């Protein structure tokens, strides 16, 4: 029942928070934070009680729509565990960071909790229909979060996000149904489908459908243009969860579904995946370098970093897959920090233009220090979490069958990441304070409360890689064995 509790506790919370009258804004805040905290505790219990060597655990299976074989099937392996923990942690911290939101706080927090239901569900579902339901469920709260609490172009951004993702997921649904209708398929159970032994030509087409569904979410070049718009317009909490968790649903989809169910197609698609990953890495980095808006810079950096996650997946080796998950985890933590900090700077200076903000370290040393810390984590400094996944992805990619040129291009991407991040740090953190920075306050205790856990996690994973890899590695090995990456 642990997994069901993790998934549905926020749903109950969301319902109660939504029903509170508008006058009880403070109650809504506290209740939402409590529910998210309780869910984080449950996720921590899952982490602690998880037996790292033992495959899928805490499995729950029940008939749902028996006539067509749709089951209620939940289960967690090491990859799920790390993603669920990330999702629960970021949701809680996003709620803490949004404490002072004034526009309809009840609805806002209810939507955040609803979002958590979808995110947790995606990472724990082992039935395809269930997976799809959670996948689509995520869209709705995010649409309203951007569309209602967003910036000036929020409606355009929200609709673009919604339609683009929907465009992708429609193809995914096609794939799901095709798998079901295929004589060798005939089920929605992911673990059963993985044993189905589908013909390679059929796999190829289904992979194509899944690719569109997942690649939009990651996002992979050239399907990424919804991301900068959504990020720039989204409120801070939504940006944190969008970059921190939602993007990982895409790479998770490749890992949980496309690779084990369609291993032959994966092999056929590998060159394309590798190419798109490498292109995403350098393309995102180059675009990040050109940005004048802090949030857009972080958004494009996400395209680049998720490229490393895709590179590890394309490698198909155990090192690569473990690296991919490490990138996903670290990017969630570090980019979460970056978006929180950019939001905090924006609240104070009312601008996100890099040209208008400079010399933070002289006025707000704590905020500036954490921003620099997160930037160095983001550019892959060893000892912080960003390096772990990038290095393992590269290591796995080099040892795989992909063209080594893509790996070299990706390695250049590491250099380009240093360029855009340091260029930002140089202008925003260092130097002489600009007028927008005059007289602003440093971080409050509540803001530090939201940031410090992420900073600690960045450091712990960066120094003791096995703190994360002990969960990820066994699952990565099992998966690599399936796709033949060894």
């Amino acid at each position: 029942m642990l997994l069901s509790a993790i998934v549905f506790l926020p749903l109950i919370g969301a319902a109660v928070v939504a029903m509170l009258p508008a006058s009880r804004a403070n109650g809504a805040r506290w209740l939402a934070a409590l529910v998210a905290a309780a869910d984080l505790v449950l996720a921590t219990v899952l982490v602690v009680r998880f037996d790292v060597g033992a495959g899928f655990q805490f499995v729950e299976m029940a008939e749902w729509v028996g006539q067509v074989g749709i089951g209620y099937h939940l289960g967690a392996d090491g990859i799920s565990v790390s993603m669920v923990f990330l999702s629960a942690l970021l949701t809680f911290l996003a709620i803490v960071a949004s404490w002072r939101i004034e526009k309809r706080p009840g609805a806002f927090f209810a939507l955040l909790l609803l979002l958590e239901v979808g995110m947790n569900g995606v990472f724990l579902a082992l039935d395809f229909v269930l997976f799809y339901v959670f996948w689509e469920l995520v869209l709705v709260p995010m649409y309203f979060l951007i569309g209602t609490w967003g910036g000036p172009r929020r409606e355009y951004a929200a609709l673009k996000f919604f339609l683009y993702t929907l465009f992708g997921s429609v193809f995914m649904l096609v794939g799901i149904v095709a798998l079901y209708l295929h004589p060798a398929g005939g089920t929605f159970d992911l673990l059963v489908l993985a044993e189905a032994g589908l013909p390679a030509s059929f796999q190829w087409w289904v992979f194509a459908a899944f690719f569109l569904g997942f690649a939009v979410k990651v996002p992979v070049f050239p399907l990424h243009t919804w991301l900068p718009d959504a990020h720039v317009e989204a409120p801070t909490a939504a940006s944190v969860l969008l970059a921190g968790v939602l993007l990982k649903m895409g790479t998770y989809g490749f890992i949980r579904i496309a690779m084990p169910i369609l291993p032959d197609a994966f092999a056929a698609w590998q060159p394309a995946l590798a190419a798109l990953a490498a292109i995403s890495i350098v393309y995102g980095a180059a675009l990040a370098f050109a940005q004048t808006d802090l949030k857009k810079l972080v958004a494009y950096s996400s395209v680049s970093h998720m490229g490393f996650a895709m590179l590890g997946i394309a490698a198909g080796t155990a090192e690569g897959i473990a690296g991919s998950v490490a990138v996903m985890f670290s990017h969630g933590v570090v980019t979460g920090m970056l978006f929180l900090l950019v939001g905090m700077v924006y609240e104070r200076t009312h601008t996100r233009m890099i040209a208008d903000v400079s010399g933070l370290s002289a006025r707000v040393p704590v905020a500036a220090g954490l921003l620099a810390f997160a930037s160095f984590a983001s550019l892959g400094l060893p000892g912080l979490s960003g390096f772990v996944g990038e290095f393992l992805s590269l290591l796995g990619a080099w040892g795989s069958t992909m063209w080594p040129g893509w790996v070299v291009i990706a390695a250049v991407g590491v250099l380009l990441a240093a360029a855009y991040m340091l260029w930002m740090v140089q202008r925003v953190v260092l130097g002489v304070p600009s007028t927008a920075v005059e007289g602003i306050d440093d971080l409050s205790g509540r803001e530090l409360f939201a940031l410090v856990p992420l900073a600690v996690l960045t450091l712990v994973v960066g120094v003791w890689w096995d703190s994360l890899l002990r969960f990820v590695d066994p699952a990565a090995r099992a998966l690599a064995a399936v796709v033949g990456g060894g």
Partner: protein
Amino acid sequence: MGYVVLIPLLPAIAFAALAPLPRSVRNRALGVAVAAVATSLALSVAAFLAVTTEAGHGADVAYHASVVFAHAGSAELGFGLLVDPVSAVMLLVVTVVGLGVQVYSLGYMHRDERRGWYFAVLSLFTAAMLTLVLADNFLQLYLAWEIMGLCSYLLIGFWHEQEAPRRASIKAFLTTRVGDAGFAVGLLIMYATTGSFAYDTVLGGLAWAPGAATAVALLFLFGAMGKSAQFPLHVWLPDAMAGPTPASALIHAATMVAAGVYLVARALPIFEASGVALTVTLVVGSVTALLGGLLAAVQHDIKKVLAYSTISQLGYMFMALGVGGFAAGMFHLVTHAFFKSLLFLGAGVIIHAAHTQDMREMGGLARHLPVTTGTFTIGALALAGIAPLSGFFSKDEILTVLLHEHQYVAFGVAIAAAFVTALYVARLWFRVFTGPVQSEGLREGHAEMLAPMVVLAAITVALGFASPAFGEFVAHHGEWPAPLMALTSTGVAVGGLLLGWFIFGRRSRVLNTRVIKQRTGPLYDVLVQKYYLDLTYDYFIVQPYARLASGLWRFDAGVIDGVVNGAGALWRQVARLGALVDARAIDGVVNGVGTAVRSAGDRVRRIQVGRVQVYQGLMAGALLLLMTWVIVKGA
């Protein structure tokens, strides 16, 4: 010998303790940093003594322990502590210079409002360098290497309110990272070839295929060229002088820049398996030794003279390694670390006293700064290679090994570079210490600044006599310099000094620069413009990348996103058309088709409103079609 873990750990703890403190508290807790590195020094001495005992018993490795910190696939990544003769010597170098610089900084930085942060970063740097030295595998070496890159960035840009340090810091980080990218790819190939990063595996007894060895060695060399400022990746080091002078002494002269040399020295068996890589190392070192020396000879900024001198001397170390001269290269690394940090610390006192870094505005300091003059002169003569100072012995070893390996061209280059070295040493010395006094209120440095200089000077005087013992210790072979070689190299050095005295020691200085410029013409311009390398990089790499990035951004917004928006707009047009047709049809057919059409029309019209639910329904329709197609196609 479990205490070895404390050697890097103590400075790391000092950093972790200082960094989160508020500035005012941190500024009063500098003793934490000094105490940490002092304890590390004491433990390093103990470790060194243990190794000498072991070496007496014929064993090389005195201590080796490791833990695995990462499992991924077949990769088991370890963190190890390896104490053998080379690392034991390096421990001493790093902690002695590190402690000297910290003590010196107590005086040099005592009025800086962020001195606490400065000491914290120095501690982190020391911890990283010690971790690098103690590494038992190349991945750990790389990790520590990158942390040092961060420390270097932070210290170069320490006075970040000014433009120059800010620019210099980012330039240093990115230039060295160009090398690091090569190093990283080298690591990937090493792992793909051998399945390991551990010295034990990849260096001990493994038969490297020449191709893989060449690839790995050259990529490692590329990384080393970035870190150790070898031509043409040296451009960051002179700019790095924008940082506080004692930090320059520690990082950009004595230790971090030596990390590249250390890497090549450690990986020397791979270089030797390749052969080609050795030759490339020799060429890179030769070019750098000479070209760096020439640049040092035209600088007016005292720190930049020393910076280019460092580049040139590092070139010597690469030359030695390029002919397999492990002991010679390492010994020069050690002697250079001491005498160059001595020179930088002396330069710090000089800059404080003269209130300028420009040697044209200095002069006659010898009478006012006796201790500094004395110690600086010892360092300068060691750099010039005058017997019996340590620099003479180590340079002599390099010349000997070059000759022994029949590398006559490289030997000639080394002799020429030695001549140039003596020349710019004389130029610097006469300009700074002789001639008319140009500054007022000249004062000798604080006691805490002078004490480390005296110690370093004493080491510089004494260390040379350890030359044979050092060779014996690290490579089981050491001997005293051959008389003929010693005479030759000393003769060259004296010649350079004499020429320097002839040009810069006798006559008015300002006139001289002009005369030299006139006589040498375009060559002098090339040197002043640093071979136009900075301009080349800016014009052919930095600017094009910036243009490419903004071009790609326009492409992204215009073309890629344009397709998305275009598809949206097109769909709206289709919908509008549909609505139009719908309206006409309803007008035209009065009674016929009826309610079905009307409801369909309503549906299309609602699309224009942009309601999400409608889109979803629409998608479901499209879905059915696609589904049919995929099934037909796939089955």
